[in-house]
Structure formats: C-alpha cells, structure tokens
C-alpha cells in the first residue's frame, strides 16, 4: 500500500514530464497542455472547495481577469510577459480578497449565486470597456517566444502549466497539514461551532478564497500569452468554472490528487465527445448527465471510492469534534 501510494504519483509525474516527447504530434501536446491547465485550475479551485465546502461556480472570473490583466499589461504597457503575469496575479488576488469579504458573508446557496454573478459581471465589464480591452473584437497578445514554432511553444507551455500544477498541489498539501487547513475543515463541518471555538472563520475563508484565485489567475495569465487571442465571452465562461467543479468532484474533493484525476478524465473525454458526437449539441447533455451522476452517486469522488484507505495525502475522515479540537488547539 505504501509503495502504491508513493509509487503511483511518482510514475505519473515521470510520465507527465515525458509526455510531450511520447506523443506522435503537436496536437496531442496542445491537448495535453490544455488538460494540465485544467488540472492546475481545478486543484486550485479545490483549495477553496475541498477544504471549506464552499462551491464556487465562478472561478472563471479569476481565470479571465488573470488573462486580461496579463494581456493588457503586455499590450498596453509593454511590460515583459513574466512580470505582467506576476503583477496581474497579485492584482487579481487583491481583488479576490475584496470580493471574498463580500462573498463569504453569505453561505450555501447565496455564495454560489454570488460566484455566478461575478463571472457575468466581469464579462460585462470587459466586453463593455471597449477602449481598454478591445471589447468584442478581442485582445491579441503577442507570443513571448517569436522564434519558436508553434509546436515548440506548446511544449514550453506544457511545462509551464505543469509547474503551476506542481505549485498548486504543493500548496494544497501544505495547507492540508497546517493549522490553517484544520480551521478550514472545521468550517466545512460546522461553521458556527468552529467560530465559537475561536477559529477566525471570516479571515480563513477569505484567505482560502484568495489563495485559490491566485493560482487560477496565474493559469489565466499563462493562457493569455500562450493562446494569444482573448475574447470576453469565451474567457469569462460559466462552463470553464463548472469544469473546475466537475473535475474536482469527480476525482474527489478531499484528496490531493482528486482534481488532477478528474481533469485527466474530463478533459480528454470532452475532446472525445466533441469529435465523436460533434455534429450535435448532445455533448452538452453528456457533460450535464455526468455532473448529475457524480453529484447523486459519487459526491466524494473516484478516489474515495477506489480506496477506503488513503491514496496519497487527503483530508482524513475524522469526526467533526476531532477536527474542531484540532483547529482550536
């Protein structure tokens, strides 16, 4: 068991690093980079969703803001791309703190509504602010590697997204072992009790919200320089946000590698559905039904099903009381 739990992630990491050199063509590198991007985003989504149980359908707002922030800094101010990426990620995180203060005041359903509203609002702002963002014409971001041909650019970004995924996984792992993480889990179990035991729930929730926005906005920024064309209605898409949720739930929100596993299943399946059933919109139905089935029958995800024991680091199954004590200590 120990060998399996340590060996499998190592093997997967090895395969991931080798992936661009194993596949026969650049399309598969491209698809791989997209998949890793989704994995990174759903892992960072899980920093909020997995620990606190707050389901945000609106994380694509941070993805879009990260993308437009990076793109605008490069195009309008001529900032070097790495600096643009970092500056915009910091700005988006600050914005997320601000939004978080309003958003986490409400629980449950209201929170989900707020997250949906956030995406629509950002879409309206970016589409409407034509003079800055180019509006519906979109924003064209120059490639940071003009000397590389397209396929090589895909390889570079595959590794960049992989690094981001690593960073997100590391953060999740670190948080899961910290007191901060224990506090977040206490919020998930019983927010009122956690608060009465002295967990600063508000600050914890906002921190988790901002942290998860940080990685998503980094993914958005990388996407902007990689993809080169930004269009508000497609970047601020509820569907992107819901993919993060679907991937995390499918894999298992309480497990470190849950969202990654979900992304490895959902992203290629999405590609397959589009190619196999692409002539009609039935692929939307397939996605929808998958979500319904997961929510109904596997809300804890595949990893929870596969192993009663832990597969890799995960949030332990302990009682609410134990968890609360851990948080209050």
């Amino acid at each position, binding site marked *: 068991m120990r060998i399996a739990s340590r060996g499998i992630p190592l093997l997967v990491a090895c395969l991931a690093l*080798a992936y661009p050199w194993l596949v026969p063509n650049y399309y598969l590198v491209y698809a791989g980079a997209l998949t890793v991007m989704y994995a990174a985003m759903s892992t960072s989504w899980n920093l909020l969703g997995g620990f606190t149980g707050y389901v945000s359908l609106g994380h694509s707002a941070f993805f879009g803001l990260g993308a437009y922030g990076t793109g605008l800094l490069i195009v309008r101010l001529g900032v070097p791309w790495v600096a643009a990426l970092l500056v915009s990620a910091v700005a988006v995180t600050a914005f997320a703190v601000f939004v978080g203060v309003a958003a986490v005041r409400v629980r449950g359903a209201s929170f989900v509504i707020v997250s949906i509203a956030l995406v629509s609002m950002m879409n309206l702002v970016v*589409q409407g602010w034509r003079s800055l963002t180019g509006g519906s014409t*979109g924003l064209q971001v120059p490639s940071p590697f003009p000397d590389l041909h397209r396929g090589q650019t895909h390889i570079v970004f595959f590794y960049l997204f992989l690094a981001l995924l690593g960073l997100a996984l590391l953060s999740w792992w670190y948080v899961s072992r910290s007191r901060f993480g224990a506090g977040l889990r206490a919020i998930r179990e019983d927010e009122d009790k956690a608060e009465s035991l002295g967990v600063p729930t508000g600050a914890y929730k906002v921190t988790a919200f901002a942290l998860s926005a940080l990685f998503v906005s980094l993914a958005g920024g990388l996407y902007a320089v990689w*993809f080169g064309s930004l269009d508000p209605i*497609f970047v601020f898409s509820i569907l992107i946000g819901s993919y993060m949720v679907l991937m995390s739930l499918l894999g298992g929100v309480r497990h470190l590698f849950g969202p990654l596993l979900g992304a490895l299943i959902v992203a290629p399946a999405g590609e397959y559905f589009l*190619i196999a059933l692409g002539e009609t919109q039935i692929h939307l139905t397939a996605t929808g039904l998958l979500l319904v089935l997961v929510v109904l029958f596997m809300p804890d995800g595949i990893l929870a099903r596969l192993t009663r024991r832990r597969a890799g680091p995960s949030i332990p199954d302990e009682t609410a009381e134990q968890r609360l004590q851990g948080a209050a200590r």
Partner: protein
Amino acid sequence: MARVLKSLTITSMCALALTACAKTDEPGTAQPAGQQQGPVKIGISLPLTGDFAEPGNGIKDGYQVWADRVNAKGGLLGRKVELIFRDDASDPNRVSSDYESLITQDKVNLVFGPFSSRLVIPAAKVAESYNMLFVEPAGAAKEVFEQGFKRLFYAAPAIASDHYNYLADYIIKLPADKRPKTAAYASLDDPFAQGTAYGLRDKLAAAGIKTVVDEVYPPETTDFSPIAAKIAAAKPDIVVGGTQFEDSVGLVRALQELKVQPKLAAFSTGPTEPEFPAAVKGAAESIISPVGWSATATFTGNQEMIKRHKEMFNGEANEDTANGFTVGQVVEAAVNAAKCVDATKECQDKLADHIRQGTFDTVVGKLSFDDQGRPEQAHMIQQYVGGKVEIVLPEQAKTADLVYPKKPW
C-alpha cells in the same frame, strides 16, 4: 527533504531519457509518398452548434456543394476531394484545437476558414503558424486584416466597413430637399456587425447627416423595445442596424411597436436570410441590406451551385452557402494554377502568391485581393420590393429601382 530530492532526481532522469526522441511532424516537412496518391484532404472547423450555428451550417452546405461539383469533374489535380469537418461550438478554444488537430494529426492538404470574425483570428493564427493557406468565408471585420497574416484571404466582395458603400453614395447624391438629415444607428457588439453600420455612419456623418442615436447592444439582448424607444424619441430620418439575424428581427418588431417610421431602414445580414420576411411578418417591405451574392446573378457557377444545392439539401442556397462555395472556387483556381496541393510551405506559399496576384471568377463575381487579403470589390444593395428581394444598387446590376422614402411598416 532527502526523499523529495531523490524523487526529483528520478523524475528528471526519466525525462532526460525520453527527450532523445523528437516529433516526426515538424511543420513544413514533406508528406510521405503514399499520401500523394490518396484524396486531397481539406480540414474545416465550423460552428455547427452554438451562437453561430445557423450561418455555420450554411457555409458547410456551400463547401459540400463545391466538393461534390469538383469530384464530379474528376477532382483536384485528378485526386478526389475529401472534406473533414469539425464542430467548434462557436468557441475560439475549440476552433484552435480543431485546426491544430486537422493540420498535425489528420495531416490535411488544405484548410478552409470557419465562420465569424471572432473565430477567424484564432483560427488564422494556427494556420499561419503552420504556414497553411487560409481562405475564409466570413471574417469581414477590419481587425482580421490588421494581424499581419500573410496567407489569409477573405473570399467575398468587400470587408465589413465597405458593405454599405453603394447606399452611402446613393444617399449623399440625393437632392437636398429629399436627403435625410438625421440618422440613428443600433449595432450588435460584434466586430462584423459594428463594422458594417459604422462604415455607413462615418460616410454619412462626413456628408453632414447628423447621428442622433448610436447604440451598441450586447449579443444576449433579446428585448429591443428600450433601444427602439430611444430611436423613437430622436425621430430620425433613417435607421441603420448593424445586425445579425435574430436581432434584426427584434429591432424591426420593436421599431414597429414604438411607431418609428423612418424614410429608410437598413439592416445587415438578417434581411438576406430567407426566413426574414416570415419572421417580421409584413414588415420586410422596403427594408434594405447589403448583400454579397444574388440568386439571380449569372456569375461563374452560380446557377449550377443553386441547382446542385437544391438536389443535395432540398433547400434554397443563401449567401452563406455562396460564401463557402466561393472559398472553394478561389482555392480550386489557385491549386490548378500552381499545380500543387500539399501541406508544405513551398506549395502553400505558391498558392498564396497566386491568390494575391490573380483575379478569380466566382459565384459572387470577379474577386481580387490586396496585400493583407482584403477583397477589393463591393457589396450590392438589396431591397424588398413588392414582397420580393431585388438588387437596387449598383446601377449596372440592379433588378429594380430603390424605393425611397420607404413605405410605413
């Protein structure tokens, strides 16, 4: 810590061991010999679902009619033409991955363009970076031609901002007592739709016709009463809509409800669709719109296309069909002239050079292109006259006289 280091070492060694092998499909490499004998594969991504599905399917029909005709005549350079369609669901992410996979995985010989200015730019980026010729049926917004693409050509008579040129000339030349003095513009927030309306606006404004309303509405707008109310309050002489289909219908309905009776009403795209008169009931009469294609024209292959379309799909061809077909005609002529049809840079460059220099006979008339791939011709102006679509401008192509001022709706 030691454990982390150890795993890092192992993983990096795995990676190093594998970096030795490289891609077999570096762009621009020649195709294996066997491929030369097979069919000519043409990769196309179109919005068959989603927001742009209606025109997307129209263009697909056009491509298919063209391929059918070419194959009936013995194919391209003696090889059968095979079209590979992908659905991009009106999403630029998808459009990129579609062309990516068509070019590197399916190893197509040629690519044809998708629909809508919003999707053409991301698609053209992919094609351009693999050195593929990119003739497209629908990216008419001026921004498309400002990206520095070297192998992009728009196979229709004119770019968006020039669509209303004939109408602008006509209005400006009207005698002073008949000339409209004020104009209202309402446009969809879309590069193409706005391009058409603003092209006309800028020309009329320069000629002294005052802009009294200039509205932009987002794509999801379905209630046009408030916009119509603004227009009604300004009482303009002419109303111009930079529209696609459904919003043109919504605007016409709302203008009627708000009892706006302009002397001239022009809408892009919508009125050229065959469903338009039924959708607006009796209000289509006298409505004007720019059109790049006419069902009655006798340009090269036009009547044959209409007939073949009817046989294949049991329906009437429309402008989208014609646009798709035109792409086929232009590329076909280039392939026949350059005598090559493979995906290599040399061949694709040869095709692009030929298109840039040549003049092409198509179902929309003679076409030629400038250095950025803009077509250099003009759109005609159509009007519903007596319940029928008539070409009213330019003078030499007209089938009826322009009715002005328009009848009340």
